[in-house]
């Protein structure tokens, strides 16, 4: 096996522990998307067109709430802003690659692909074939996401309506948010966003959601700047 292949499989192996968490998540997405009224085709294709777990969950929720397209798109943009951080962080390591490689690795650049990749680059620096590591991690994740989505769609179709499966969405979000509440600015961001979302619930076009999210982001950032200057999380 050549150096490229070695790096690729090393990336796949580094990704495996993360896949254990991703698989049930993909299944939950598949089942919920179907429950929210998306067709089987749309539910499955969103996993390759968007290929971003939390954005897909949020889209599913907003589709089931009949939010307007523009609000869904704006919300996805806000939810995915963090990918710019990953992009900025990996950019120096990928700067000498061709445009095709840059585009391919960008498409695969999810939270779970970023984590092992940045660790690898920080450990070994840029080697001639290290981008194959990122590809291996990304492809392993991509395939797992597609298969788990398909399985979720398959199983979701068999779940009876009176199980209130739609409630699993906010529960999924709770499971994502609560462990991240490690300090006061994080708690303040979450609570202020939640309270504004309640107060602004009556606004048309689900604009309350965007207003609430922006409030939480500003509150968290301002508090962090006041309390712990110069220290990122």
């Amino acid at each position, binding site marked *: 096996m050549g150096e490229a292949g070695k790096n690729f499989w090393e990336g796949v192996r580094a990704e495996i522990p993360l896949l254990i968490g991703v698989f049930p998540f993909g299944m939950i997405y598949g089942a919920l998307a179907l429950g929210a009224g998306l067709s089987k085709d749309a539910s499955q294709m969103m996993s390759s*067109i*968007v290929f971003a777990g939390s954005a897909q969950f949020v889209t599913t929720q907003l*589709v089931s709430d009949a939010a307007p397209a523009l609000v869904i798109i704006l919300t996805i943009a806000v939810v995915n802003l963090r990918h710019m951080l990953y992009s900025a962080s*990996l950019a120096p390591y990928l700067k000498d690659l061709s445009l095709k490689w840059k585009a391919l690795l*960008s498409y695969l650049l999810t939270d779970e692909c970023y984590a092992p990749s940045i660790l690898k680059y920080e450990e070994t620096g840029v080697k001639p074939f290290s981008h194959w590591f990122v590809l291996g991690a990304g492809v392993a994740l991509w395939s797992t996401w597609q298969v788990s989505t398909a399985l979720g769609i398959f199983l979701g179709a068999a779940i009876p309506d009176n199980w209130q499966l739609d409630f699993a969405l906010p*529960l999924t979000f*709770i499971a994502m948010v609560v462990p*991240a509440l490690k300090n006061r600015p994080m708690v303040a961001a979450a609570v202020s966003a939640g309270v504004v979302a309640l107060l602004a619930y009556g606004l048309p076009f689900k604009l309350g959601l965007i207003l609430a999210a922006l409030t939480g982001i500003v509150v*968290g950032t301002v508090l*962090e700047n006041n309390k712990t200057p110069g220290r990122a999380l």
Partner: protein
Amino acid sequence: MNIWLVMLIAGLITFGMRFSLIFLFGKFEVPETLRRALHYVPPAVLSAIIFPELLFPAGQLDFSPANTRLLAGIVAILVAWFSKNTLLTILAGMIFLFILQVLL
């Protein structure tokens, strides 16, 4: 609304953000304040969805103990806090909601 068009635009935005700074490397730096603000995006957006889901179960503000989704949500928050386990949190919330509905 055409779901396919929404998905296509969402996909382009997502790709655009992932590609942005890899493509622009050396030409643009993310300002420190923006970098910090990005950490607060997930808790802010997700809480903005969670709160109304728990407190407006039928389109009306409902703080009463008869609001089964609020009670199940609180249980899920506690389970998430202590276990930090996604699957366990979802299961606990769903099972608790189911039990409440059988009881009430």
